[in-house]
C-alpha cells in the first residue's frame, strides 16, 4: 500500500533468560497504513506487547527491520531519539503508571511541544486544545493525574501523544485497565482520531470483542508468530486457522446462554517452542506432518493463515 506509515519486516525480538535465548517474537511481517486500525490479538505471552514495543523502538531487534515513513526505526538508547520518530507514538496500558503523578496534566501534555522546540506557553495553549479534543475540559490542564478516573487518565495519555502530530500510534492494551463503559468511550475516541487525523493505529488487545468492533484488519498471534491475518470481518466471520477458531469460540456471547468452548492446555514455554507448527500440541486437527513442517503464512479465502493443513498442503 502506498500510504503505509509503519512496516515491520521479518521482525524478531529475543530476551535472555537464565543464560538461554528466548525468542518472544519470531519473524513477524506487519504493516499499517494511514487511516487504518490494525488489531493485534492473542493470549498472554504470545509476544504481542513485545512486538508493540519493538515497533516504536523500545526493544532491540534480533532480526528484521522496522521502517517508519520510509526510514529505519532505531532502538531507544542513550542518544537523543531522531526527530522524525516524533510522529510514531505509543499509548501504554496503565494510565495510573504512565502519567507522572507529581506534574500537572497541562505540563505533561505540553512536553511534546517543548521537546519539538516550541515554547512552554505555546505548549500549554495547545495542551488545552488537545484536552478538549479527547473529550476533557481545557481546565483539566491545571489538575494532577490523581484527580481523574482511569478512563480520563487514558484520555490524557492519548492527548499527550497527539501533541507531536503523530502519523502512527501504537496502543498496547489501552483499554484493559478500564471500566466497561470507559472501555467503549476510549475505543470510540481512538477510532475517531484515526479517521480525523488520518493516523495509522496498531491496537494490541486481549479483548477480542473490542478489536473486532474497531479494527479494519486483525492479526492473530500465537507464541511469537502471526498465525492468521486479514480483514476483520473476514477473519472473524469465518476464521480458518484452528487457533483463531478456538479464540472466537471461547468468547462468551451475550444472550447465548451457553458456556463458551474450551481450548485445553496452556501456551507452551516460548524458550522451548514445539517443533513444526507451534500450535500443534493443542490443535484439534493436527497431523503427523504438523510436527515437522514449519508453517508459513499462505493466502486462503481472502486472508492469510499459517496452517498447511487448511491452506492446501494436506486434508482440509
Amino acid at each position, binding site marked *: 500500500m502506498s500510504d503505509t506509515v509503519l512496516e515491520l519486516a521479518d521482525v524478531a525480538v529475543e530476551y535472555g533468560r537464565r543464560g538461554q535465548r528466548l525468542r518472544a517474537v519470531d519473524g513477524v511481517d506487519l504493516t499499517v497504513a494511514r487511516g487504518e486500525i490494525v488489531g493485534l490479538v492473542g493470549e*498472554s505471552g504470545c509476544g504481542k506487547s513485545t512486538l508493540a514495543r519493538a515497533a516504536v523502538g523500545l526493544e532491540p531487534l534480533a532480526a528484521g527491520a522496522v521502517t517508519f515513513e520510509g526510514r529505519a526505526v532505531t532502538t531507544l538508547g542513550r542518544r537523543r531519539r531522531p526527530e522524525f520518530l516524533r510522529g510514531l507514538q505509543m499509548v501504554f496500558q496503565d494510565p495510573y503508571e504512565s502519567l507522572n503523578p507529581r506534574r500537572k496534566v497541562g505540563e505533561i501534555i505540553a512536553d511534546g511541544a517543548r521537546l519539538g522546540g516550541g515554547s512552554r506557553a505555546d505548549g500549554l495553549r495547545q495542551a488545552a486544545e488537545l484536552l478538549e479534543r479527547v473529550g476533557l475540559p481545557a481546565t483539566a490542564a491545571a489538575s494532577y493525574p490523581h484527580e481523574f478516573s482511569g*478512563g480520563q487518565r487514558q484520555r490524557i495519555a492519548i492527548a499527550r501523544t497527539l501533541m507531536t502530530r503523530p502519523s502512527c500510534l501504537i496502543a498496547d492494551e489501552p483499554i484493559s485497565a478500564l471500566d466497561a463503559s470507559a472501555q467503549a468511550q476510549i475505543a470510540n475516541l481512538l477510532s475517531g482520531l484515526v479517521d480525523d487525523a488520518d493516523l495509522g493505529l496498531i491496537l494490541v488487545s486481549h479483548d477480542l470483542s473490542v478489536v473486532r468492533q474497531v479494527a479494519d484488519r486483525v492479526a492473530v498471534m500465537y507464541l511469537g508468530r502471526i498465525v492468521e491475518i486479514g480483514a476483520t470481518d473476514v477473519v472473524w466471520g469465518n476464521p480458518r486457522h484452528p487457533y483463531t477458531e478456538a479464540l472466537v469460540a471461547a468468547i462468551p*456471547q*451475550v444472550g447465548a446462554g451457553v*458456556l463458551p468452548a*474450551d481450548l485445553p492446555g*496452556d501456551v507452551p514455554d516460548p524458550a522451548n517452542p514445539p517443533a513444526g507448527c507451534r500450535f500443534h500440541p493443542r490443535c484439534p486437527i493436527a497431523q503427523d506432518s504438523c510436527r515437522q513442517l514449519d508453517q508459513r503464512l499462505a493466502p486462503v479465502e481472502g486472508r492469510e493463515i499459517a496452517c498447511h493443513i487448511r491452506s492446501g498442503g494436506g486434508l482440509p
Partner: protein
Amino acid sequence: MNELLRVEDLTVALPTRSGYAKAVDGMSFAVDTGEVMGIAGESGSGKTITALSLFGLLPHGARVTGSIRLDGIELTSLSGKQLRAVRGRQIAMVSQDPATSLHPILPIGTQLTEHMRHHLEMSKEEALSRAAGLLETVRIPDPEQALRSYPGQFSGGMRQRIAIAVALAAEPRLLVADEPTTALDVTVQAGILRLLDRLCRERGMAVIVITHDLGVMSATARRLFVMYAGRLAEAGPTSELLARPRHPYTRGLLDALPQEGGAALVPIGGSPPSLGQVPAGCPFHPRCKYARPSCTTDRPDPERVAEQHLLACPPDPLRAAP
C-alpha cells in the same frame, strides 16, 4: 431447590472523611443450592462490598445492618471465632487477582491443605493426596510437582485455577467468585467457567458470580442482579434481562457492548457516582436519558414487575420497547 443464602435489606456504610457513606443500600437476594447467581454493575457499584460482607471481611469501621442468613444461621451476629468456622468451610471466595490471593512464598501444597487440616481435621498425608486430586480437577498438569512449587512459577491462568482449588479445598457450599476471569485470556476463561459449571452440577455447590462482563453472565448465571450505586437496579432471569432489559442502566450496559455487524459502541455518558456522592432520587438519573423531574427526588425501590423480575424504575420507560 433449597434456599442456601438469604440476604435481606443489607446496608453497608463505610467511613469516609465526611462521615459514613452507604456503599451498599438495601440489597436483598437469595441463592439456592446448586444455583449460579450473577451480580453485575460498573466498578464502584457495591458488588465487591456486598460479597465481602458475606465473609465479615469489610474494611475497618464498616457498619452493617440487615440480615445475612446462611442455612438459617445469621452471619452478621456471629463472633470472629464463630465466623472463622464458616469462612472457607461453608463459604469461600475467589478474587479477581490470583497474584494477591495466593501467598507468594508458601508452597501451593501448604496453601491447599490449610483448610482441610483446619476444618476437616485431616492428617498431612491425607490432605496432600486430596490436594493433588483437587489440582487435577482444575487441570494443573503434574499435581505432585505443583504441590511443591510456588505461585510465582505458574502463569496467571494457572494461578487462578490454583486459587479456585484453594477455595474448593474444604468443599464449601457457596462460592463467591469476584471477577474470577476478568484478568484472563478468553481461552483460559472458557476453561474456568466450564469448571465452575461442572462443580455446581456435580456437587450442588452454589456460586455467586460478580462481573461486569455480560457475556460471562449470560454463559453462567441463571439469575442476574444489576447493581448501581449500591442499590439494586434490576433483577431477573439472565436470559430475560439481557433480551428485554427494563432498567435504562441495564439497557446502557448492553448498548456499550460490541454489537454484531460493527455498529459503533454506545457508551453510557458520565461515570458512576463516587462513595458518599450518590445523587438524590434515583442514583442513575444524572446519566439517564429517560429521566423525569420525579426521578431527581423520589428514591425508587425495587418493585416486582413480573414473575421473578424486580425493577427499581417507576417510570419504566422501556416497558413497551420491543
